[in-house]
């Protein structure tokens, strides 16, 4: 029986994403190859399983919108490239959907271990449904972890990307359930003087720490990052 590390390692938001080199369905890829683009790295438990198939179809359909936002997709599971290729061809045959993104064949669990993708309470041999958003500078910006049983919502992935890119472009935060075009949140002041100035100068403040602004005047679907 393979031993699991006593203290699993997890990447940290706001820190450089752990570098790796991996074999994929598109050849040998390094994380640094994606510099200059946003990257959504996501894992699935296994090829030729039903929920994973629905996710791959959904991500494939999302790919054009992500591409317009300068976002690339990179899949991963603990399967061989041969299994990946067979499954991708099977998806194309049965669902008429072409999978445009590379998929890592992480048979030695190297990337899965680096990114804390294996949850022993669920499985010791499969990754859970983990998703990482990495910005063009290689910084990890968001993580989403879902169980084996539950397919992810790709609308939320797109919304998350729009929110992060809006934050980067305009220096604002986004409230719960934010959608592009809706009001954004100004970062709260960090000093007494700044708090006083904020409430005096901004009519859109509920209180010194809670101020909103109109939707930024940007098209988040154009070149970002």
């Amino acid at each position, binding site marked *: 029986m393979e031993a699991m590390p006593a203290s699993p390692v997890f990447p940290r938001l706001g820190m450089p994403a752990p570098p790796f080199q991996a074999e994929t369905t*598109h*050849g*040998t*890829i*390094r994380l*640094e*190859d*994606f*510099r*200059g*683009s946003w990257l959504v790295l996501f894992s699935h438990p296994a090829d030729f399983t039903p929920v994973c198939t629905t996710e791959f179809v959904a991500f494939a359909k999302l790919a054009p919108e992500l*591409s317009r936002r300068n976002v*690339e997709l990179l899949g991963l599971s603990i399967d061989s490239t041969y299994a990946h290729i067979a499954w991708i061809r099977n998806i194309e045959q049965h669902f008429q959907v072409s999978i445009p993104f590379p998929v890592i064949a992480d048979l030695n669990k190297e990337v899965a271990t680096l990114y804390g993708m294996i949850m022993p309470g669920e499985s010791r041999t499969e990754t859970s449904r983990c998703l990482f958003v990495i910005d063009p500078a290689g910084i990890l910006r968001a993580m989403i972890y879902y169980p084996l049983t539950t397919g992810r919502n790709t609308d939320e992935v797109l919304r998350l990307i729009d929110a992060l890119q809006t934050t980067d472009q305009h220096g604002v935060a986004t409230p719960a359930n934010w959608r592009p075009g809706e009001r954004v949140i100004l970062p709260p002041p960090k000093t007494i003087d700044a708090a006083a100035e904020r409430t005096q100068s901004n009519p859109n403040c509920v209180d010194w720490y809670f101020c909103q602004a109109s939707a930024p005047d940007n098209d988040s679907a154009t070149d970002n990052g």
Partner: protein
Amino acid sequence: MACIRPDGTLEPAARGVLKALALPQTVEEISRQLRMPVYRVRMSLRELSEAGLVVGEAEHYHATDAGRIRLAQDP
């Protein structure tokens, strides 16, 4: 895609990158010219460099003599 086949011939993506490097170009310039994602350009450049067909100097890449010969043999 792996850029160089076992028999030494070039995959279409690699051929495209090599052709684009008749003049020195950056990764971004190649990406725009070929409408290829930057990561795929970098993958291709890495393999082509390891094969001695391309060389990079201060962010610009260009085909080597060997690269130009290979392209002539495998248009």
